[in-house]
């Protein structure tokens, strides 16, 4: 399997996703070694361009690149010339002139990586574009589900919270439906996009309906920064109506796992006893993130020297 860009999980086949996840499983072993490094991507330059705040994803990509011996350059919006008024296209073209092989971008505008993939000659990886997709998060979530549940096909997965602004939800929906899971979503009516059923999910009015009998409960963060208006009255009310507490979790299957892409608003969408409880796999998600990103960079790198 060879692909040049990873812009989203939309349109990826079950075989393609499985190939990435299978590779990620083997890459996990490298992070457990004393010397956590293999020489595979020696001489490859990876530019990380994060035009929106990130700790987990940027660090995770950077560690993944370094464990494969790639060189990384990291830029953030405030430290780049974007803050001096340069356009995104000009900034990236200038970065491209420094010849990176893989360009990893996070941007608050949906579709930015897609636009750049048409302009740049190098590989582009979407590390989160606005409210659209966050493919590596979707992959690491599926890897974590597969690890705990043995497979993805047939799983009942509840995704709860701010569906509208969540690129994590969208990538998971595309990936999970391709893999044959049954996805239910729930959240405040103001934060559930109209016609989302067309992506192959079931919409539940009440959280309890979504959680009941599920194998996986994925809570989403309330994204205050993307909310241009008022979508719900107070965080306290949100927590009461849509937050995951032990009582609600008891409706899920006995061995259900709880996931959250982070950063968590403790006490809002998830109660601390659930977040830190035995069924939480939130830190496994972070560990799998490095392995998934190593697999993605490895598979993309086939393109780097194509034709040489």
């Amino acid at each position, binding site marked *: 399997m060879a692909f040049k860009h990873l812009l989203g999980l939309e349109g990826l086949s079950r075989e393609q996703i499985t190939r990435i996840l299978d590779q990620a499983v083997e890459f996990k072993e490298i992070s457990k070694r004393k010397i956590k490094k293999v020489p595979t991507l020696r*001489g490859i330059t990876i530019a990380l361009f994060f035009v929106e705040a990130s700790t987990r994803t940027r660090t995770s990509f950077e560690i993944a690149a370094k464990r494969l011996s790639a060189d990384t350059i990291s830029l953030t919006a405030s430290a780049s010339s974007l803050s001096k008024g340069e356009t995104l296209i000009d900034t990236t073209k200038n970065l491209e002139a420094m010849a990176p092989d893989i360009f990893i971008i996070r941007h608050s505008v949906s579709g930015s990586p897609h636009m750049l993939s048409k302009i740049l000659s190098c590989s582009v990886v979407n590390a989160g574009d606005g409210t659209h997709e966050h493919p590596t998060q979707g992959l690491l979530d599926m890897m974590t589900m597969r690890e705990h549940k043995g497979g993805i096909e047939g799983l009942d997965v509840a995704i709860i919270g701010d569906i509208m602004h969540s690129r994590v939800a969208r990538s998971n929906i595309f990936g999970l439906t391709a893999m044959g899971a049954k996805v239910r979503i729930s959240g405040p009516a103001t934060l559930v996009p109209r016609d989302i059923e067309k992506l192959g999910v079931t919409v539940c009015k009440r959280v309890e309906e979504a959680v009941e009998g599920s194998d996986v409960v994925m809570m989403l963060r309330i994204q205050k920064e993307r909310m241009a208006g008022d979508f719900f009255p107070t965080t306290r009310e949100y927590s009461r109506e849509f937050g995951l507490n032990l009582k609600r979790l008891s409706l899920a299957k006995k061995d259900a796992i709880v996931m959250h892409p982070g950063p968590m608003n403790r006490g809002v969408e998830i109660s601390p006893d659930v977040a830190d409880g035995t069924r939480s796999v939130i830190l496994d998600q972070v560990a799998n993130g490095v392995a998934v990103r190593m697999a993605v960079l490895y598979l993309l790198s086939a*393109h780097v020297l194509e034709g*040489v």
Partner: protein
Amino acid sequence: MEARTQGPPPKKAIMTGGEIERVIGELAGGVIRQCGDSQFSLIGIQTGGIHLASRLKKIIEEKTGMTIPVGVLDITLYRDDIMMGLPQPLVKKTDIPFEVTGSRIVLIDDVLYTGRTIRAALDAIIDFGRPKFIKLLVLVDRGFREYPIQADFTGMFVETSENETVKVQLKEMGFSEDRIAVFEKTKKG
């Protein structure tokens, strides 16, 4: 495991069944003579070396009463042709269940050819630690070395031409009987 047929007919069969058992037995004897005076470990290279390593482990343990740890090594990430613009090969499992630093290691592969796989394997092992020594064991040496690498234990030498390939087909891989045979190289190599 799905049952495999013997595949396309080989150009010539080198060895089958009991003869292969005998050669593996002799290799085990050689390893015991050279390394058996104190603890050592085996590392099999994916995929051909792995079943060979398990067979050797069994024979050595039966003969000596020692417990021999066996590691599995995938060398894909250390290949020298990995960034040549080819589709990336599947990375398989690596699992070294013992401390490499200070250990005495016998590295095992089925066929020794250019020596590139062994170069990669040495680099991979050294990234885990500093072994006391690494010795190389191969079932078949078919010549055409491109790197200066020789085996310490060789089951047999087979004369081949460069447009041929040598395959070691073992029952553990799903074949109906053990066979070492020479095939015409296909385009895939």
